[in-house]
């Protein structure tokens, strides 16, 4: 038979209360620190400056060649974490920085050959790029196929067959019941340059 509250001596009750209060407070303290409010999502350009500063430490000739959302995309083109990839011609290596909450949470060398051309500075931000993609085909695709924009990536030289020089945003919409939709947007003008399903 388990003791009821009445069976427990009063000193033990007080001790139990005090210990319970202490444990609760300590738990609250750790919970507050460990599970603070999640970092606010941000558009891609907001993290570029900090990533560039870190990359310039790694290599003085480091140039941004690629970026991609590292966590889920919001409907407004923001993400809680973005990954920025830099290439150093002198080192002939690429290094990635992933930013969340204004901090670099991952820094790692890319273990693959990736001597991509640098992305010019004048690119539209991810929120504007997603608006442009939605306005062209993305909104209808989302509605018709219960889809979402899963990936946005900024690069140069890979998605433009005819003229690979301009930097482009590529938005990938994925659906559980239809082939993915790719929308490529000129990162300087914000105009949709091509799209396909695959």
């Amino acid at each position, binding site marked *: 038979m388990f003791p009821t509250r009445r069976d427990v*001596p*009063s*000193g*033990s009750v*007080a*001790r139990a*209360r*005090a*210990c319970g*209060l*202490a*444990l609760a*407070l*300590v738990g*609250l*303290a*750790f919970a*507050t*620190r460990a599970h603070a409010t999640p970092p606010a999502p941000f558009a891609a350009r907001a993290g570029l400056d*900090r990533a560039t*500063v*870190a990359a*310039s*430490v*790694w290599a003085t000739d480091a140039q941004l060649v*690629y970026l*991609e959302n*590292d966590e889920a995309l919001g409907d407004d083109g923001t993400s809680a*974490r973005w*990954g920025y*990839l830099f290439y150093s011609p002198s080192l002939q290596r690429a*290094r*990635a*920085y*992933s930013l*969340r909450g204004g*901090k*670099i*949470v*991952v*820094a*790692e*060398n*890319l273990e*693959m*050959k*990736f*001597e*991509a*051309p640098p992305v010019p500075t004048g690119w539209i931000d991810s929120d504007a790029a997603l608006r442009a993609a939605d306005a062209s085909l993305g909104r209808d695709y989302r509605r018709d196929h219960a889809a979402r924009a899963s*990936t946005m*990536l900024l690069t140069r*030289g*890979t*998605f433009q067959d005819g003229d*690979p020089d301009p930097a482009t945003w590529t938005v*990938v919409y994925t659906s559980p019941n239809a082939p993915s939709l790719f929308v490529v947007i000129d990162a300087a003008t914000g105009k949709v340059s091509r799209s396909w399903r695959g």
Partner: protein
Amino acid sequence: MVRAHVLSVRLGAGALALALCTLALPARADDADAPVRVKVERVRPRRETLPTLQFLKANRDFFRSRLDQLREKPLASRDRAGALDPRFLAYRRMIAGVLASSDSTAAIEDARSRRELFASVTDLGRLEAELDEMDRLLAAQRIRLTALQEDFDARQRTTLAVVVSGCPRSGAPDSIAVALEDGARFVAPLSEADRNALAAGGALQIFHGLIEPREQVLAIGLAGGAWAAGDSAFVTLEPPRDRMTFLQLDLSQAGAASGASGLQASTWQRAGVPAPATERPSEP
């Protein structure tokens, strides 16, 4: 019974204080430039690993094939020279100004040394004019120094300086190695003079360089003498951006038995230099 109750209440109050201190810790570490003790660990601390650039890595063959097809064509417009930073031109003018000031000072000193006696009021007047001229030169020099401080001191980069102090009872190591997470590794050999300096209470700067502004683990290795090869300790630092971070390694508590993890570490940042509120003074 009463004692037990009082003890429980004390425990509860202690826990409350502990909890409040735990909550307050991050704020305290952020707002102070005073040295803060850093935990030294024997084993490299494990950190959360997050995936990055997943689309790129999943489609690496596609990206590789597309990049392989690219050919660069040089553009004529890229041959044009860019505009020079006006600060670099200003430095040249500053150097010319400094040299001219030196000439003027030397001329004044020369003339003064030739005169042993000021014979008249006219001579005193001339002396006053010379003092005014020196005041003007000093003011100009102050303006140059202010400009240089703005350009170099007020615009700090993210750097780390590692300083070593203290001497272990078993003797100082022959060298200290520090490895950063980005792969950079530097080894500072300690000469006999360095070891004597440490034993006499001195401090040595063994590294000063750029560091990525992010939380990272530094591996510190001591080698030579009584120290086993490959003996390392690990320190976690988060150098703030555009600040100079100091890491002091106190070797006095380290020993052959405890290894490198017996050393004590503390860190602090160099106080920022406030940017002047006024416009940058122009070079006279």
